[in-house]
Each structure stands twice: as C-alpha cells, then as structure tokens.
C-alpha cells in the first residue's frame, strides 16, 4: 500500500494561512473517524470481543457447555503434534494455490468476452452468474453426478477423446482437483466486478493508444490491465481469504475424504469445535490459519506496489 503524501493540500494552504493548515489536517482526521464510526462500533461490539475471547479461550479446555478449565499452553503443544491438522493445512494450501490464480484469470477472461458487443449480452452474463446464486444442495448433487467415475458428464466427455477419466471424488489424488474445478463455477461474481471495472476505464486512453498505433494486445497489456489492477488486487486477496476457508463443499460432498484428501483446515476446525466440543483447541487452530492467511495477504499487499496502479496516486 502506498500512502498519499499530504503535501498536496499542505502546499496549497501553506500560502498565507498557516492556521488553516493545522486545523485542516485535524478536520480530516475527524471526518475520517466519523466515517469509520459505524464500522468501528460494529467491530468493537461484535467482533473484537469475540476475537479476544477466542484468543483467550486457546489457553483453556472449553466446550462452551461446562465450565472451562485453564490449561496454559497445552493446546499449543498439542497442535505441534497434530498431524491431521498439518495435513489439512497442506490440503488447503494446495487448493488455494490452484484455485486462486485459475479463478482470477478465468473470471477475467469471461468478463472480457462478455464485455464485447454480442447479441443477447445480458442473457449470457446472467447465465454465467447462475451458479453463484443457486442453492448449495442442487450444486452438490449436480457436481456429484458430473464427477461420477462411470456415468458422470466429465468422464463421459473425456471418453469421447479416448481418455479414461480418474475416479475423482473417490480417488485420493483427484478429489482435491475436483474441488478446484468446482470452484471455477463461481466466476460469475468476479466477472461482475471486472465488468464494472472495465466499464470505468476512460475511453480516451484507448483512443490515445490507438492513435499511437498500439495493437489490441498491447492496448490490453498497457491500458486495460493497469486500469483494472485495483480490481484484480481485490479479487486476488479475497480469493486467497476465501480459498483458505473452504468448508461447505468438502463437508457436504466428501466428508474430508477419501482418506482426508480433501480435509480442509476449516473442516478440521469445525470438527474439533462442533463435534468434539474442544473450542479452546479449535481456537488455536483457527488463529494459526488466521496467521497464515494474514501472511499471504500481506505478501500480496507488499507486492502490490509493483503491479497495482491507482489513478489517485498519479500525484506524489
């Protein structure tokens, strides 16, 4: 994240009105805090308390139903030897590594295609959005059928090309790739974002580029992508945060299997907390996951100075 220098306002006001300069800055602070007040109230009341509570809980043996018992660092020690949780972290990381780039690029491609003038453009766009709004159980049943090793759509399609499809959800190697493929059905959401972003790119930039003799590919690379980069940044970060918390699909469809091949971190956390009633230990696991997500997010934030371009930063 780059920060805006305040020399812009400062320089204008230095001339002749030193008094205004100081109160101008403080007025800005006040306005900022006022704008953030709603969020801050919500955060303090609803979230901060729960987060602190869950962090404290990690030092207890707590099932939320009977009185909690202080056990110091025992939960943390246990976590170090928890091979199942470690495995779930591996599963989750592999999933995120595959699903996020694929999701971001595919939804961008779809958005670009649907940005072109086509007949019934609205209908196509709505259709791509359908899986994002359709109920989970319908999607689960459909995917279950599509991935069926013998009669499913995917393997039947592969058979046309003479390829023997894998056993997908019944195979330890292919179950996680199946979930990656399933995640691609959610491109409709990001597609919408990119469409909004594409719409706002000033057309005179394209005109200027055309006049300079740029090809379409070059215009894409030098105009579209940079102008879209704030949105890309958003979808990447949100994609990482969401991918690391994959839960519902493995829970409903494979129960984390086969043989824990699709045991995601949040699924394991859910089991430990809601099935085994060990909320203290689950808190440890959740905070570890939190740290990992935070780390990845910070990495992306750091890197953003290189590739994310904000119009508002034109002036330094």
């Amino acid at each position, binding site marked *: 994240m780059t920060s805006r220098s305040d020399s812009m306002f400062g320089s204008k006001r230095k001339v002749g009105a030193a008094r205004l300069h100081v109160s101008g800055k403080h007025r800005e602070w006040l*306005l900022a805090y006022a704008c953030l007040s709603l969020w801050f109230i919500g955060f303090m009341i609803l979230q901060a308390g729960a987060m602190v509570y869950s962090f404290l809980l990690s030092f207890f043996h707590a099932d939320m139903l009977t009185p909690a018992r202080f056990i110091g660092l025992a939960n943390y020690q246990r976590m170090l030897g928890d091979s199942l949780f470690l495995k779930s972290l591996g599963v989750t990381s592999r999933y995120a590594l595959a699903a996020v780039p694929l999701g971001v690029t595919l939804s961008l491609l779809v958005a670009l295609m649907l940005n072109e003038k086509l007949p019934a453009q609205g209908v196509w766009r709505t259709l791509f959005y359908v899986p994002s709004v359709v109920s989970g159980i319908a999607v689960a049943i459909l995917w279950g059928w599509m991935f069926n090793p013998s009669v499913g759509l995917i393997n039947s399609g592969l058979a046309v090309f003479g390829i023997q499809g894998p056993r997908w959800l019944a195979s330890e190697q292919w179950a996680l790739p199946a979930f990656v493929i399933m995640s691609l059905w959610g491109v409709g959401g990001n597609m919408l974002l990119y469409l909004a972003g594409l719409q706002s790119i000033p057309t*005179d930039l394209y005109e200027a580029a055309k006049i300079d003799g740029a090809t379409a590919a070059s215009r894409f690379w030098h105009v579209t992508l940079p102008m879209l980069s704030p949105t890309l940044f958003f979808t990447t970060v949100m994609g990482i945060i969401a991918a690391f918390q994959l839960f519902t699909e493995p829970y409903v469809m494979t129960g984390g299997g086969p043989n824990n091949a699709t045991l995601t971190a949040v699924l394991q956390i859910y089991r430990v*907390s809601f099935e085994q009633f060990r909320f203290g230990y689950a808190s440890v696991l959740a905070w570890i996951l939190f740290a990992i997500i935070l780390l990845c997010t910070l990495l992306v934030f750091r890197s953003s100075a290189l590739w994310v371009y904000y119009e508002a930063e034109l002036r330094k």
Partner: protein
Amino acid sequence: MPRTLDAKHFQAHPSDWFPRYQHRAGRILLRVLLLALVAAGAFLFLLPLAWMVSTAGKAPSLTWKVPPVWIPPDYKWQNFVESWNMLPFPRFYYNTITITLLSVAGVLVSSSLAAFAFARLKFPGRDMLFLLVLAVLMLPGQITMIPVYILYTKLGLVNTHPSLYLQSWLGDAFSIFMLRQFFMTIPLDLDDAARIDGASRFGVFLRIIVPLSKPALAVVAIFQFTFMWNNFFRPLIYINDLRLFPVALALRLFQDETRIDLQYMMAQTVVFVVPVLILFFVAQRFFIQGIVITGVKG
C-alpha cells in the same frame, strides 16, 4: 476538455485482436466464434438451473435416475402449487425481502463511508485499521459464532429480524475493501476541482465520488442482495419462530434426517432464484463499455 465521442467507435470488437480479419467477413466470423464460445460456457453454467427446473417437475421415482432425466415425460406443474401451499411462503418472502433490502441499504451507507475514509483521507492508524477491517475476514467464523450468539442473547436480539441485518449497518469488510479499491481509481483532479469550487471533503464524497462510483456501488448492492437473499445459516442459528423465517431457511423444511422432498424443494428454489437473476439482468445492463471522460465536467 469535453469532447463528443461516438460510442460505436469504441465498442470493443473481437476483430481488434486479429488485425488480419478486419475485413467484413472476418469480423462476422470472429463474432460468431466468440458467440459460440460464450454460448458453450453459458450452457455449462446453466446446468444447475436446468437441473433444478427439471427436478421440480419430476415424480419422486425419476429424481435419482442416473444419468439424470432432463425432460420428464410428464412435467408436474402442480408441484409448484402444492409446495407453495405447504408452507406460508408469502410470509417467508415478506421476511426475506425486508431483511435483504434493509441489509443492502445498510451496507451501501456504512461501507461507502468507511471506504471513502480509507481511500481519500489521511489519518493516523489508517493502514492498521484497514488491515483490521480485513482481519475480520481471515478468522474462521466457527470460532466466533458462539460468543457472538451469546452476546446477541444478552442484548435480547435473538429471534428478531434485526439480528440478521444489524451487522450490515455496521460496515461490511468485503464491501469496504471493494469500494476502497474502486474509489482509488477515481482521479484526484476531480476532487481538487470540487474543492476549489468550495466543496468540503465530505461534499467531495457526496458530489464526486458517489456519482462516479455507481458501477461499484451497484456491484456491492448486487453482491449483498444475493448474499442476504440466499443466506440461511445466520437465520438458522438466530431465528426460532417459524413466522420469522426467511425463504432460504424455510426451503430446508423440505428435508430432514429421514426424508427429503426434492421435487418440492427444487420447485420453490427455482421460484426463489428467479428474482435474483432478474435483478442481475437488469443491473448488468449498466455495465456496458461506454464513454468515460477523464476531463472535468464542464
């Protein structure tokens, strides 16, 4: 410098990418190819809806046939009527609509304000606070669910509708982040011009940022609408009284541990999904590459 521009001149065309096919036949060919690609993808994405519509009209003995029967020989339209009458759906829709609209309004107001602060204002702790906004999204909800529930119980808000949309009025991290990104793509010249004209900083927000962010605000509205419309988990935990159920939760009344009336559930799910799709269709018409001028409004 204001200019009159011809929209047609700047509509993107697939032939832009293949200069060799700039001639008329080539343009048509490429357009057709693109259309074919899009149609193929859309067909694939349409499958869940098609399956739902198809299942809604099936007799139970057809529901599980493998491979699925896409067009049942005797489409039971009465499933829609029967399932509608089985439960007080008008009441459920009233609940869903009020909760969703109140939530969307709340998110738009609270998140745009916060995003404005992060995007345009400079103040101590800005980066830290922004990270805090995001941090909330990074902690799995299972951990905080019960403490928050206990809090709501103590506040006496359990089994009330506000428990479902109150949080929307207190900022939504996803929307704040999204809007911040978008606000930061708006050039500062416009802000300056407005300030020179005497607008306060907040005036800049109201008169420059918000109007120019209509696409992003529309996206926030659509996302929040879709999310609240379909959200069943929060109502599941917080609502006990059947009369307060939103549709998303009520649909789960068609299943329990021993049986699931898939055809009724799908019939009502189809009905339930249609408003969201219509809303999306109507809203996306505003996302057409149009004329955007960077110059100052004259």
